[in-house]
């Protein structure tokens, strides 16, 4: 489906309103067109010397038509513009809903700012197309059709002379548009040069400041800015022509009517009333003529924006529930990895990040994972709630491939605490209850205690209702991590994954948290990734990951005895703990 096709389906939803709107526009146009007609009748009566009663009658007819026209016009504008707003609203909702379905990998290829600009700005310009765009698209031909027909019935010859100007205008306009596009491309190019300079300057600000290069940076900016200004003036030179040009066209038509029409009046062929009516019709046509260029750019922009939206709508929600989804089996079966391979498509040039991973994690058991940065630890656990799908092999829960399970049930089954804590600008309470709105006070208190948040809750003036995040009070890295841990605890899922989620928490607090967690997690199946051996040493099983492969496997004692990477790490760890205590 192309962008415009999708747009049509939205228009279709509101076809009744658009239809009524269009009918109202037709009525409005008719009522507008009768006014010059009655003006003509009135002036004709005056020319012929009365009677004044007839003039008054025509004047009253004009007033009636005007009032009726005003009502219908208000209604039609209201109807069409509001339909545009409704479609804007629908589009924005639908796009947001679609974004919610897209996998994490999608968000690696689009920047937040880019996506936001599509949801806000592009939808806005589509709305301009649907409101004012549609209105003028219908109005303009209606006006031309009505006015030209009526002028024709008054006097065919003069109409022909007058409308000769319009093809000229269309021709001039076409040439003109090509030029404008060229210049506007140049303006845009310079704008992006300017933006890149600013972007680079801001990202490299520490170097700029360190070498005191502020002035030369500003100097460069001034140069780019001057060129931008010059190109903008080229644009202004062209765009400035449109208004006077259109005004000139309208003026010429009026001039023709007066001069040529005047000659015909003198020869007794026409009446002054006809000249007056002609001018009145031309006045009505002045606006759609002047708005012609504006309308075209509105259409082009709306169309381009719709295509940009379509690009997002077309992105596949690759990770979704299968058509016939199973429920998560409530058996004693735990978690299994069977020959799991994983490759990011875009990143790492197709290098496998996980190679042939197999393990069993029976229900209620704890698994520790250690390994150096980039070994694939986070990737491994992100496969479980299906943030990514395996490239080959299988992950099973209770004996069922997780890809056959209902996605939402699977995710309710797995609590994942990521390394990068992400909190929303909301109260601490709603952040904690993020996955579980029905959490009882008791559950909240419990999570606060286990995640060692009681201190903060005590200090914050509004306790749990304190707003945190970007628009609230800023939390330190450790506080954020503890809050995200609390959030997962309130979520209360059978499987809990801790992905090095206490890295910014100091060692002492971490130990307290781990101790508190031990009781809470007794029943739960757990995977703990940590750079601290102390966090994983009590796990039933520990995997050592290196370059995407399991290189060592066993419990703490077994691994120590083996004297490999794990034993090495343990030794270093003890040294650093010693250091920490100094």
């Amino acid at each position: 489906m192309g962008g415009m096709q999708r747009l049509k389906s939205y228009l279709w939803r509101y076809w009744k309103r658009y239809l009524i709107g269009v009918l109202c526009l037709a009525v409005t146009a008719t009522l507008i067109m009768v006014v010059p007609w009655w003006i003509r009748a009135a002036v004709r009566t005056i020319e012929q010397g009365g009677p004044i009663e007839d003039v008054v009658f025509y004047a009253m007819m004009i007033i009636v038509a005007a009032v009726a026209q005003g009502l219908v016009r208000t209604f039609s504008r209201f109807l069409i513009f509001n339909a545009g707003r409704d479609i804007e609203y629908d589009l924005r909702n639908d796009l947001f809903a679609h974004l919610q379905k897209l996998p994490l990998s999608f968000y690696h290829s689009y920047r937040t700012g880019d996506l936001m600009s599509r949801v806000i700005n592009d939808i806005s310009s589509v709305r301009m197309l649907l409101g004012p765009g549609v209105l003028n698209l219908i109005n303009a031909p209606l006006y031309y059709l009505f006015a030209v027909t009526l002028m024709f019935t008054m006097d065919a010859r003069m109409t022909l002379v007058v409308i000769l100007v319009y093809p000229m205008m269309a021709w001039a306009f076409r040439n003109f548009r090509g030029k404008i596009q060229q210049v506007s491309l140049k303006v845009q190019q310079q704008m992006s040069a300017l933006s890149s300079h600013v972007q680079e300057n801001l990202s490299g600000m520490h170097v700029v400041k360190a070498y005191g290069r502020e002035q030369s940076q500003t100097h460069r900016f001034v140069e780019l800015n001057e060129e931008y200004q010059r190109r903008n003036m080229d644009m202004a030179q062209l765009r400035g022509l449109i208004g006077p040009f259109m005004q000139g066209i309208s003026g010429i038509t009026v001039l023709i009517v007066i001069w040529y029409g005047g000659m015909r009046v003198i020869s007794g062929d026409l009446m002054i009333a006809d000249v007056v009516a002609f001018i009145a019709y031309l006045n009505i046509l002045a606006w759609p003529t002047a708005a012609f260029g504006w309308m075209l750019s509105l259409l082009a922009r709306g169309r381009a924006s719709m295509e940009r939206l379509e690009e997002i709508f077309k992105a596949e929600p690759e990770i979704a529930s299968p058509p016939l989804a199973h429920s998560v089996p409530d058996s004693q079966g735990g978690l299994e990895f069977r020959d799991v391979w994983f490759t990011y498509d875009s990143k790492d040039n197709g290098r496998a990040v996980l190679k042939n991973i197999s393990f069993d994690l029976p229900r209620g058991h704890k698994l520790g994972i250690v390994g150096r940065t980039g070994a694939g630890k986070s990737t491994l656990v992100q496969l479980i709630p299906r943030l990514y799908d395996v490239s080959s092999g299988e992950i099973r829960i209770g004996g069922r491939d997780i890809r056959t399970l209902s996605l939402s049930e699977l995710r309710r089954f797995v609590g994942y605490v990521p390394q990068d804590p992400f909190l929303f600008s909301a109260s601490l309470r709603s952040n904690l209850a993020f996955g579980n709105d029905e959490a009882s006070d008791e559950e909240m208190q419990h999570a606060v205690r286990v995640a060692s948040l009681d201190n903060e809750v005590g200090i914050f003036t509004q306790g749990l209702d304190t707003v945190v995040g970007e628009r609230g009070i800023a939390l330190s890295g450790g506080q954020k991590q503890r809050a995200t841990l609390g959030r997962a605890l309130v979520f209360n899922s059978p499987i809990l994954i801790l992905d090095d989620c206490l890295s910014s928490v100091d060692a002492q607090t971490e130990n307290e948290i781990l101790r508190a967690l031990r009781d809470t997690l007794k029943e739960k199946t757990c995977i703990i990734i940590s750079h601290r051996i102390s966090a994983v040493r009590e796990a039933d099983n520990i995997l050592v990951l290196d370059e995407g492969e399991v290189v060592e496997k066993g419990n703490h004692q077994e691994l120590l005895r083996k004297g490999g990477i794990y034993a090495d790490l343990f030794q270093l760890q003890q040294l650093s703990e010693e250091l920490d205590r100094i």
Partner: protein
Amino acid sequence: MNAESHQEEIFGKAYDLELVRRLWRFIVPYRALFGFSLMLLPLQQIFGLAQPIIMKVAIDRYIAGANLWGLGVMGTLFAVVLVGEVVTYYFQYYFTMLVAQKALADLRVAIFSHVQSLPMSAFDRNPVGRLMTRMTTDVEVLQEMFAAGVMTLVSDMIMLVWIVAIMLYLDVRLALISLALIPLMVLAINFFRIKARLTYRLIRERIARVNAYLGEAIPGMSVIQLFVREEKSYREFEGLNSSHRDANQLSNMYEASLYSMVEVAGSVSVALLLWYGGGEVLHGIIGIGTLVAFKEYIHRFFIPMRDFSTKYAVMQSAMSAAERIFHLLDTPTVIASPPRPFVARPFRGEVAFNDVWFGYREGDSVLKGVSFRIEPGEKVAVVGATGGGKTTIIKLLSRFYDIQRGSVMVSGVDVRNWDLQALRRHIGVVLQDVFLFSGDILWNLSLGDQSVSVERMEQAASYSNAERFIRRLPGEFRAQVRERGSNFSTGQRQLLALARVLVFEPEILVLDEATSSVDTETELLIQDALVKVMKDRTCLVIAHRLSTIRHADRIIVLHKGEVREIGSHAELLEKRGIYYRLYQLQYEREESRVDTTVPGLKFQG
């Protein structure tokens, strides 16, 4: 209108006036040009408004009098006036835009240079995108204001006065009849203006909320998905979205009514004109031509009224853009040179930290009473675990941040008493992640300083071992560097950074050694270059290489924000304290040629 909204209205007026006043300051330098374009305005209007009078004369005198020659004269006159109108219209627009472009270019530069003087902490707080929007999108909105809004609002007002004057001149009674609906229109427009201001503000607030919501929901989408929050967050978004739509639909109602009302009033005025004027013509008081001219003036009178709502909307968004821009311009530049900076002459490359306390956030001290002294020409290595405050020391020395207590002295003068640029010129900084600008190699070596000769840069590159790889590039020293130096390896970037230091020849070198590994050959080149660059300079090095530490005269051990040990490598090893353990942890393996990249080790400071 209740009292509260009335007050808001008054406040809003004063506030917008203040914004306009500040914008005006950017126009002042071009006031001559601006005045000229303003002078074209009445000229353009005279040309335009002469047309109905020409019509009147043509009809009443020549058409009614069957004078073909006279009609021809009037036709020619009309054509001349039309040309005059079109030409003045064009130049008026052109000069207005010229003033606008020049003033806005100045505004952009003002924002840019203000941003240059903001302290580093401002960049920690403001995302790059937000600052860019101020300089680009928001200024564009102001340009729209000049093109479509303010100027025409002013010219419209003048035009209306002209029309009323001409109508009164032509026929007082007819003028009063034609303009009978004006008081009504003024009331209607005023009502609209008040309502519109409130709804526009509502719309602005609500779209800002939609924006803010997206700004979190998009980066946090995986959290939403993981906690199966999609439905609830959809409902939240839908709520914000619908309240935005409702506000817009409310404003649609005002706009549609105003637009239609103006059109109705226009037609009704024409009807009144025919009614009353028709009688006057029949009584021979005026000619039909006068009637026609009046009809034309009424037409012209109502066009600006009809477009008022559009222009008003442009004005509103311009005001909010101006508000954001001035808010940024009002951000104080906390760190600035003192009015009368000290000049240390002669410059001695000595550095001292005296009981320095500093934290990025209040109550969270990263450095706790750090004191040390480095003599001119001395090489000092700083070691310690991650988070111990090593990088912070570098930032404080160049005064990227101001300390909370104590003093940082360079060449015997407190950094807060230095001229900022002069201070930073004496200190060469090489950070772990070398930042390269897009441009060519020469630009990156001189950072745009044109007083640096090409020979000097080539010498520096050759001395710092960067020349060899540069010579192999297409274009050699003119080779293009892509954004953020993405077409150079880490090692190459470090060599370039060292060459950059040699170009600027600072007396003090501050170096944060890179931890990432490079190939052996490059590593040797870097090591060799480092020795050369460090020679004859005061050096403060955050060391990760054992060889660098060994070359240092003294080692400062920074642990948990405090200086815990100071001494030479041998002395400190003997002490068997923190350094001894650090050495075991981080450097010993290097000595025994074992892979040093310990998996994810991290310590708390």
